[in-house]
């Protein structure tokens, strides 16, 4: 009896061509952006020799420094808060059996993935402006809260996946060995869940770092993050400084994604 060959997409005619085309379309613009970040001239599309000039300009630009600091502060807080909430949500949805309203809970947790971002942005703008009037507070808290909210589903998914792959007999064994529910979480569930939690936090961090739409609507005057600062620059003369900032962001993202892959691969 001959073995039936598994269907292999790479044998289809034109596969190589389409694959190359897709890669070119995806990466050509990014490669161009990275190359022109090293442009010595003033243009983002006319080469004027290799130089690190624009990295220096960006690094010395106080507006860029402020925006970077703000972006990092918001991303750190948002990933911590959203990961904590997502961990609780994941425990609640995987460690207590089926319950009525479970689907509703899933929808609520994943709501930021489904509702158009612009709708959430407008809603937050209107809501927060009344809160600002009522409280007089206009600090970074609004941005941190908004970012925390839309980061939850991204943090939730890897944590939930990890929990679902974890057998509950570990927790049963801990309870058998005199661990209270809190001790069980502290000494057994959390250490085993940690790769999922770290992966969730990293995803949340990147998503927060990258956000434009909601940030643009929610920020008060002088609260630019790196992406909204760059958006603002578009309205003026575009210089390779934007390329340099983008390339730096790209490098950071790649670094975090690489760590993410390592962390999630080490499971089990």
């Amino acid at each position, binding site marked *: 009896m001959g073995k039936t060959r598994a269907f292999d997409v790479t044998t289809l005619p034109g596969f190589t061509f389409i694959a190359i085309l897709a890669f070119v379309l995806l990466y050509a613009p990014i490669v161009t952006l990275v190359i022109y970040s090293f442009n010595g001239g003033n243009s983002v599309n006319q080469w004027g020799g290799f130089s690190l000039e624009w990295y220096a300009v960006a690094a010395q630009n106080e507006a860029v420094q402020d925006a970077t600091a703000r972006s990092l502060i918001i991303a750190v807080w948002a990933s911590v808060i959203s990961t904590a909430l997502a961990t609780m949500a994941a425990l609640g949805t995987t460690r207590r059996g089926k319950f009525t309203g479970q689907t509703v809970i899933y929808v609520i947790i994943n709501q930021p993935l489904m509702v158009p971002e612009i709708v959430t942005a407008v809603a937050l703008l209107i809501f927060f402006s009344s809160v600002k009037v009522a409280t007089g507070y206009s600090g970074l808290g609004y941005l941190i809260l908004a970012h925390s909210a839309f980061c939850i589903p991204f943090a939730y998914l890897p944590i939930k996946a990890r929990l679902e792959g974890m057998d509950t007999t570990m927790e049963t*064994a801990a309870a*058998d*060995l*005199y661990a209270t529910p809190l*001790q069980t979480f502290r000494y057994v569930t959390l250490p085993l869940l940690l790769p999922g939690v770290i992966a969730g936090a990293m995803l949340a961090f990147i998503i927060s770092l990258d956000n434009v739409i909601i940030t643009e609507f929610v920020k008060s005057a002088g609260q630019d993050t790196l992406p909204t600062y760059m958006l603002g620059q578009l309205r003026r003369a575009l210089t390779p400084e934007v390329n340099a900032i983008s390339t730096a962001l790209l490098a950071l993202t790649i670094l975090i994604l690489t760590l993410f892959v390592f962390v999630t691969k080490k499971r089990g």
Partner: protein
Amino acid sequence: MNTDIAIDARNVGKIYGSGAGAVTALGDVSISIKKGEFFTLLGPSGCGKTTLLRCIAGFETPTKGSIHLSGTDITYDPPYQRPVNTVFQSYALFPHLTVAQNVGFGLKMRGAAAADVAQAVDRVLALVKLEDFANRLPQQLSGGQQQRVALARALAPEPQVLLLDEPLSALDLKLRKEMQSELKRLQAETGITFIFVTHDQEEALTMSDRIGVMSAGALLQVGTPHDIYDRPTTRFVADFIGETNFLEGSVEDHQVRIGTGDLLAVPLEGETGPVTLAIRPEQVSVTSAQADMSGKITDATYMGTDTHYTIELKDGSPLVARIQSKSTATFDVGDTVGVAIDARAVQVLKS
């Protein structure tokens, strides 16, 4: 109040789920397990052994009835408050902790001082002969070693009762035999009450002080291995433990007349009417000479030290005899032979 009783289960019932999908795992089980006893729950798959164990450990709450530990009602206590530990069938060792940390886990959770934990871990690891493996992770151990870590982990907090749910089923035959005597030794050395679950009747017979035979959520018979083997009270127990011939008959004149018309002087305790006789193959002897009864050999199976003969009696009912292979006479299929039954050893079951 009897102070010799470790676990006292009274009318325990457990129903999983509700409505149309409800499963009755335990009907109405009452059992008293003595302190320091090696007690085995024996029964076929799905009869509720694990469920009873989980109720004692506190992982399940009985639907009815109560469970007492040394006289205290623990039915609704959470597992972490019960001085009862479990050896899980899958071992359930914590993969992120070393052998020593696994073994010390229970004591640490109970708030013992680090020095006391370390001392207890050393002592228990020595007990299971794993001193040299203290700093390994569970995945760096063989199956048999993991098994002993699981045992050490459950013994370290010195529970009043140790529950073992088919702990040996994942081991190969040789290792299983080794662990069986290891378990007996540990039980004798620690004096802890062991409740052991198995569906292997030989394991149950060789290891236990007493056995409880379960079937379909009910406890059918409790007794010593001798009681269970020699004096089964139900057809299920007689059939489940060892090999048994069943002959139908009826009581006549303080004897039992079986289908062939022969009368057997079996021990009766006031039974009347139709009865079932449970006859072990070793209680049947076969001769070439005339005997009480006769039959024809339809099958002979050589099994090393013994040979099993299947004999068709006059009324067509089959009877299996176990004869030592070394015995003087051997028989062939088709031979007509004399059959004698050691009537005093026959067990009479109500039909």
